[in-house]
């Protein structure tokens, strides 16, 4: 089987756009969480989010769509940076494009006509040739990337909720390893920081209403965690065969060496309380990589800051790494980036590159007192040095989809 390496990384995130800015912020433990500015959330119970700051440089066709659906712009910008980073000038038949996202953008204003929420009236107006489209399909970014950057051999839009980004990367890894493709451009993008997105998650009770905590409101594994904070952004990677990357003299950011996906088959919104799905996923990813639990030197946790996820994930980590969990440093970057939903796992793969590139671990700066059942070797402080070889990153999705990816430091 072929070795697969990462040669390109592009990122748009609440803590910085572009890989250097992103890694700078994570190194310092800077948080992107603040009061929502994208819309007036002053009457919402949830008033915090991790928003992308600043404007992106986008080609006009992408910019037009991004004004209505920002995640499309995030996807394009991250993809363009990743391709540039890897020295890929265009997508072609040897390339798999696989990106993950979660929910169609839907503007509630669109169902109002003459002061009423009247779908029939809206429909009549649209059918007479007026009014914007009601929906922006989830493959819109995929379509625009193809239009702007070239047609790949296969283009996939993954909708596996919080698992989507890593699922796309994991599938890209498998496709190269098996010889199906030479290159994969894969990752995730998302934004739910809009009235329906924030409102919907507020109704589910998944978001913290601890607004006074501001930048430190998302508190993975903390005893006072009250829920997650929505984030937005995108992270896209270029994966290639090791042989090709080396032959072309490309800088290799890391090697991808294991992947697994499973289903909880338990509940739409809650993880299996025993952490069965999470445990099986991590164990399967290690098997796929040909590793034992003793080989792993760092874990990036899904770590949402919700009561249920963090305790279950900690339990699963302690079970899989029964002999060494106390020694493995665990990061939880949602404390800084918020939860980017479909982009979360992808952006965290980018965070996992930080210790390989700069030799420091991303911290969990919100963690003050470890919650009951959340005992792990948490990385609390910025600047914790790291020279280990293998890293595992987890993403567990709404609906019970679980994924784990194993990365390896590239030694040249």
């Amino acid at each position, binding site marked *: 089987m072929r070795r697969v390496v990462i040669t390109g990384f592009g990122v748009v995130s609440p803590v910085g756009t572009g890989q250097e800015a992103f890694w700078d912020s994570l190194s310092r433990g800077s948080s992107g969480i603040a009061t929502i500015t994208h819309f007036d959330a002053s009457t919402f119970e949830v008033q915090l989010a991790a928003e992308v700051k600043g404007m992106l440089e986008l080609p006009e066709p992408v910019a037009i769509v991004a004004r209505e659906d920002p995640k499309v712009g995030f996807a394009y910008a991250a993809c363009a940076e990743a391709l540039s980073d890897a020295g890929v000038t265009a997508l072609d038949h040897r390339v798999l494009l696989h990106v993950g996202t*979660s929910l169609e953008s839907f503007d509630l204003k669109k169902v109002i006509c003459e002061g*009423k929420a009247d779908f029939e009236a809206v429909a009549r107006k649209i059918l007479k040739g007026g009014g914007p489209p009601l929906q922006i*399909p989830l493959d819109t970014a995929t*379509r625009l990337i193809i239009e702007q950057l070239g047609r790949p051999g296969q283009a*996939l839009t993954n909708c596996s909720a919080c698992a989507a980004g890593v699922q796309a990367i994991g599938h890209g890894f498998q496709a190269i390893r098996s010889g199906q493709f030479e290159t994969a451009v894969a990752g995730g993008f998302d934004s739910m920081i809009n009235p329906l997105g924030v409102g919907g998650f507020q109704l589910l009770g998944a978001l913290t209403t601890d607004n006074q905590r501001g930048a430190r409101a998302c508190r993975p594994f903390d005893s006072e965690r009250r829920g997650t904070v929505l984030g937005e952004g995108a992270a896209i990677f270029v994966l290639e065969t090791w042989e090709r990357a080396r032959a072309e003299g490309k800088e290799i950011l890391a090697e991808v060496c294991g992947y697994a996906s499973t289903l909880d*088959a338990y509940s739409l919104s809650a993880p299996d309380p025993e952490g069965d799905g999470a445990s099986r996923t991590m164990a399967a990813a290690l098997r796929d990589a040909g590793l034992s639990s003793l080989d792993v030197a760092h874990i990036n946790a899904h770590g949402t800051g919700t009561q249920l996820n963090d305790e279950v994930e900690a339990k699963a980590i302690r079970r899989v790494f029964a002999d060494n969990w106390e020694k493995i440093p665990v990061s939880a970057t949602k404390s800084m980036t918020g939860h980017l939903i479909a982009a979360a796992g992808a952006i965290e793969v980018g965070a996992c590159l930080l210790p390989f590139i700069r030799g420091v671990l991303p911290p969990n700066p919100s963690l003050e007192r470890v919650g009951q059942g959340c005992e792990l070797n948490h990385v609390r402080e910025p600047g914790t040095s790291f020279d280990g070889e293998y890293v595992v990153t987890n993403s567990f999705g709404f*609906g019970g989809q679980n994924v784990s990816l194993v990365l390896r430091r590239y030694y040249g």
Partner: protein
Amino acid sequence: MKPDKVVVTGIGMVTPLGATAKESSRAWQEGRFAGRKPVAEFTGTALEDVGVAILPDLKAPERLGGRRMLKYMSDAAVLGCLAGREALQDADAKARFVPDRMGLYAGTGLAAASINEVRKMVEESIDEAGEFSCRLLGERGLAASNPLLSFKILANMPPCLISIMEGIKGPNLIFTPWEGQTGAAFLEAWKAVACGEVDCALAGASDSAAHPATFLYLWQAGLLKEGEYPASGSAYLVLEGLETARKDGRPIYAAVEDIRVIPWNRGISDPLSERVGRTFAAAPAILLGLACMDGGEEVSICGVDQQRFEVELRETE
């Protein structure tokens, strides 16, 4: 590991031609057409005469074991759960395979929540000037809305509900929202069985294209040609290795010789469009299911996402 030949041993289907795979297949073989009805929301508009395909009585509460889970389900999820359950029962898969070794590979269509689900929320959020107000949404609108709305509009929910209801715990991939993406789901399922990553794969899709909001989008986007009409439907197939099926003495519909998903920019072609309606993400699954039941040898469909899904089937000895 030597790649195993992959066969189809279970089929579930809900289409405008029938509430089950057998009903749909029989109607297809008899050359029947889907019934059509106008959409009330489009009365007096250009879409009144187009109409949408009528689904038969699905008896969803009876077939899915009660109404409790139905409240979480979108139309597409109901269709998917019905088809998924039928396919698994047809193959007796749950009795024969370990949940961890069963994979789920699915396509899903455009999100489509009932307008009534958001109407109250929006109405409570309209200010005195008749405009949408975020402040009012926070003050009153959210309190008036259905807290389960997210479950109905997240695109991965239809397959995830199948996994929960049927206990499938293995590898998975979910793609959206057009035909080529469902084709990719079948390709991945076929590969996963062939290389031994899973012992059995449930692969398929559901789409509620006949939903008024989706219908409106499809019309706006120019995705319905003259004479075409939207239809909702679902099909799921159970794929497994030939040796396992033979060992367990299972009836085999067909062997899947090859599956390809290739870029295609020479137009959309959906062999079901005239008689079943356009079911978009669900169309490759329905087409493949019908071909397996009808002794077909080739399946081909070109989707909105400019990808062509091709399957070669063969009867097993």
